[in-house]
């Protein structure tokens, strides 16, 4: 499991080249900045279409959208073939490239336990093309393909539970993280660097443009998501050992997270209550898993 990191221990050196193509308040750009600080320069990063197209001072090759898992696989085997296993192979993908179009190849790479890093910046919709729904979009969120109409208001389906799906592949390491908790994020990268095999970090990265909130509030929103139990921070080893990394005495109500975001503005009290009920139920399950140290899916 990851070891505690203090703010002073976060590396000063940046591997990302700012500003990239990010908007003001971009959570994903911050996610990249933090993750690559910890990964360091001996890295090949592969990019597939995603938002923003973060730029890092590491070599990369562009890949096809659906090919993230295979791209990392081929790079790792190529490095093995030429005797350069010291180089880290990292994919920095969006939720589309992880949850949806890239899912098949990533699932296969996980099953083969390739020695690669998959870091996902989950901004909960296809932001690169202008905020269309993905399977990472939460229930009731308004996107440009789940609009608020007279008959249907927002997305009608739940968010795919991708961390647990990959945990079920029994990969050596999978963790969730948030840009609101940089020490935790860095600690998880640090731990993953010691692990041989498939490593995955899903970072929730709020998007002010798509989620429709004041760009100054990115960290606040990210923290509320964790504090209300919507995006719990945890890590799983070998698909079995479980640890909840952030445990407040009491969760904040989900309304504190939902209400500042205009993508949820149309929600009724009943719908809010439903989200609260699900978050509370999930939280109880995670607490139990944390107590026993065993994953409960």
């Amino acid at each position, binding site marked *: 499991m990851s070891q505690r990191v203090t703010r002073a221990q976060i590396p000063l050196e940046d591997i990302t*080249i700012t500003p990239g193509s990010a908007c003001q308040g971009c959570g994903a750009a911050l996610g990249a900045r933090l993750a690559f600080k910890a990964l360091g*320069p*001996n*890295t*090949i990063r*592969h990019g597939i279409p995603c938002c923003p*197209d973060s*730029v*890092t*001072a*590491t*070599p*990369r*090759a*562009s*890949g*096809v959208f*659906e*090919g993230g*898992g*295979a*791209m*990392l*696989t*081929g*790079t790792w*085997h*190529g*490095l*093995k*073939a*030429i005797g*350069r296993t010291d*180089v880290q192979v990292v994919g920095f993908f969006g939720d589309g490239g992880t949850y949806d179009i890239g899912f*098949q*190849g990533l*699932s*296969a790479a996980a*099953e*083969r336990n390739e020695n690669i890093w998959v870091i996902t910046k989950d901004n909960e919709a296809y932001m690169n093309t202008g905020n269309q729904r993905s399977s990472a979009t939460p229930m009731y969120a308004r996107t440009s393909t789940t609009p608020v109409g007279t008959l249907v208001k927002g997305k009608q389906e739940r968010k795919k539970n991708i961390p647990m799906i990959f945990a079920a592949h029994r990969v050596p390491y999978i963790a969730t993280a948030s840009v609101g908790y940089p020490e935790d994020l860095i600690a998880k990268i640090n731990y993953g660097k010691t692990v041989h095999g498939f490593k995955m970090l899903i970072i929730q990265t709020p998007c002010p443009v798509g989620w429709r909130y004041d760009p100054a509030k990115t960290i606040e929103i990210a923290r509320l998501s964790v504090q209300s139990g919507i995006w719990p921070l945890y890590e799983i080893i070998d698909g079995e050992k479980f640890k909840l990394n952030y445990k407040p005495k009491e969760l904040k109500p989900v309304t504190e997270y939902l209400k500042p975001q205009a993508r949820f503005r149309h929600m009724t009290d009943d719908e809010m209550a439903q989200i609260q009920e699900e978050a509370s139920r999930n939280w109880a399950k995670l607490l139990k898993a944390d107590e026993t140290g065993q994953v409960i899916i």
Partner: protein
Amino acid sequence: MSYEVMVGNKATATGVKLARVQVASAFPVTPQTTITEYLSEMVANGELDAEFVNVEGELSSQVVVQAASRVGARTFVCTSGPGQLYMHHPMHQTSQNRLPVVMAVVHRGNKGMQPDHTDLMSQMWTGWLQLYCEHNQELLDTCLMAYKVAEDERVRLPLAFGYDGYVLSYTAEPVEIPAQEEVDKWLPPNKPMPSILPDEVDPSTFGRGWGGGDPQDAWRFHHEAMLGAADVIKEANASYERTFGRGYGNGLIEEYRCEGAEAAMVAMGSMVGTARTAVDRLWEDGKKVGLVKLKCFLPFPEEDFQRIGSTVKAMGMIDRNVCLGHGGAGFRMLRHSLYDLEDRPKVLQFFAGLGGKEVRVDHVVKMGEKTLEAARGEKASSLVEWSG
């Protein structure tokens, strides 16, 4: 040097082994499947020191070798029919990144399991060099030549060589296997250019890839490299012939009894063997019909066809493919090549062997006779014929 009676897929796998491929990846699809099995066995027995990545689909197999080639490894991938179509998207990326990946395509048509050239012909716009092989010995030899060409500094392009499924993939023929030391001397290891390793990479390449300049340049340079590869293919073929005693025409085409011919047939793939016998029979009957084996489809050997086209009065292209609504790919390219000749021959289109339909010597004899009639000025009943 040794001999073995082997099926086409084993000849390919043996070529891969002799080329000392470092990373291979594939997804099993009939009739390519046994290549993946031969390679798995070779790796499991330590005969081939390679990473063989068993992926979950053809798209991933193409991406795996693309990424491994980018790092600098020598790579191999193989597929058939539907698998070929499934990997179309990343094939563009492989060629755009100028990666010397070599791929074997064991032809399988789209309207059934039997062979025709639809699979590889459908990739005409992906920027890969395309060779079509006639027999098992040619598979092994072409596999080695493929790396020589693809990795050449003047080329740096992916290359696909195709051969008819079942007809070659599962049919055994005697194959001469060159000695490993000889191959090693002839085919030095691949060199990545430029390096992507963090400590060797040129930092100016960081960032977002192609940027600035003329956006058409990416296409222009790629196209020019494709055209320029023709000379390198000829060179590789000649050098292979000097070293191992076998060559295939000039590497692009192979002429058979074209001297003094009034008309010439053009065929591709395993059908060439049938056509050779047909041409022999035609000459026996005093009918002077030659044969051109079209091996290199991309880049298309325009100059060779212009030379031959100016010595005959008619040419008959036998296509084992059809671009629906357009016609045979070979026919279109052939007639296009001949257009600039002042005194150009008539060009007839024959479709044969599509969907795996059997092509017999008699069929090709008839096509030859019809082409000869056209050469002698007789009006052809039709310019297009579905044979058999």
